[in-house]
């Protein structure tokens, strides 16, 4: 079982603080998330199924957004954080 933790901003679109879900890959997890919270559809991924440019997904603390992306395997993973990127200076 995965612990999925959501960016606070995503509550605007109906996401909870966190929830327990099962999935074998990040794409599968996002399908489940979008089914459970329809207003998150097209917020995390665009209509081609890819992660949006400034959405960051961490699997057990590692950012997979710019590497394996939605194809990331979640076998053995425990915690997923879905965040938006922050820039500053």
């Amino acid at each position, binding site marked *: 079982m995965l612990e999925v933790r959501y960016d606070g*901003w995503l509550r605007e*679109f109906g996401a909870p603080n966190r929830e327990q879900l099962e999935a074998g890959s990040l794409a599968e997890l996002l399908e489940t998330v979008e089914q459970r919270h329809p*207003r998150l559809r*097209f*917020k*995390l991924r*665009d*209509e*081609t*199924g*890819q992660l*949006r440019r*400034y*959405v960051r997904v961490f699997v057990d603390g590692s950012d997979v957004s710019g590497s394996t992306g939605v194809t990331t395997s979640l076998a053995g993973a425990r915690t997923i954080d879905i965040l*938006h*990127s922050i820039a500053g200076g």
Partner: protein
Amino acid sequence: MAKDQKVRILLGTRKGAFIATSDRRRRTWKISAPALESNDVYHVAADPRHPGHLYAAANNEFWGPMVQQSSDWGKTWRETATPLTPVSKDRPHGDGPVPAGPIIHLWHFEPGPSEQPGRLYLGADPHLLFRSDNLGESWEPVEGINQHPNRKDWQPGNGGACLHTVVLDPRDARRIYVGMSSVGTFRSEDGGRSWTPTNKNVECPFLPEESRFPETGQCVHKVAIDAANPDTFYRQDHGGIYVSHDRMNSWTRIGKELGDDFGFGVASPPARPGIAYFVRLDGFRVTNGHFQVQEWNDKTRRWKLLLKATAFPGRFTVLREAVATDALDPPGIYVGTTTGQVFVSPDAGKSWQVLPFVFPAIRSVSVAGPAAQ
């Protein structure tokens, strides 16, 4: 019940939407609190068929483009359906050329004619037109333009691959015009099934001299219809200011005598046939370092500068959706800047004021209000 006589300026900004409200005199304005604050709002449109209904093209840097709708003049908003590009995994497409990626930004709403009370049009980047028949609850791509055979030659402009102009012929709902950056204008006579490029005589100064008048590739910035003469259009193009008197079959350049006739926005007041307002820019800032509006009179074929150079000095930038007028007589003129000023004239340019507020960078200005009596 008395008809609403309020005049509302609808502002789309880099940080949300604002509404400034006045009466028919248009001298004092009450400015709303911002709405949709976390969004870059490219356009806010009122639907004259359904008073109080507004649509906002809310482009969120993080969460993508969203259609936002209000039924109470912007007091509350809700997200309706987001259109999908033909490449979406949920939408198979035909054989024509299609964009290579997802929707980048939503650009422009155009309410349909009164005989189609649920019809809306929505222009988007990358060069896409959508149609809704249920006031934005779902969208269908207008494939005749989205998959036009000419699409393989389309390129984005500096502002993206935006379909920013949708104009409907008030006499015939089947006649539709669109304008797209770096592509030009097109007309449909059959409700959007087929489209013809309409850029004859419009120069592309950025192309080699021997190929400056192509069929498409013109960087049209904005087009306004002359409501009383709907065969007439006023066009601000990258290559200058043009007029057409034959439903865009051909264009005549009218801005050359101004010297530099580059700019982005144009508006034509319904109560004054033959008049159009333009804001000349030198590159991206107002020409000669002061805010100005040029009035074109299509009957006398003369230009008139509506503001003295000393009135509002400054290097203002005015984007393509940020010049508007209203339906009253004398017409109001409304211009927003990327530095957050809104210039307002309630009397066709005789007098001017700046709204007493500094807004975020202004993307769009449109006006909802009563018609002339």
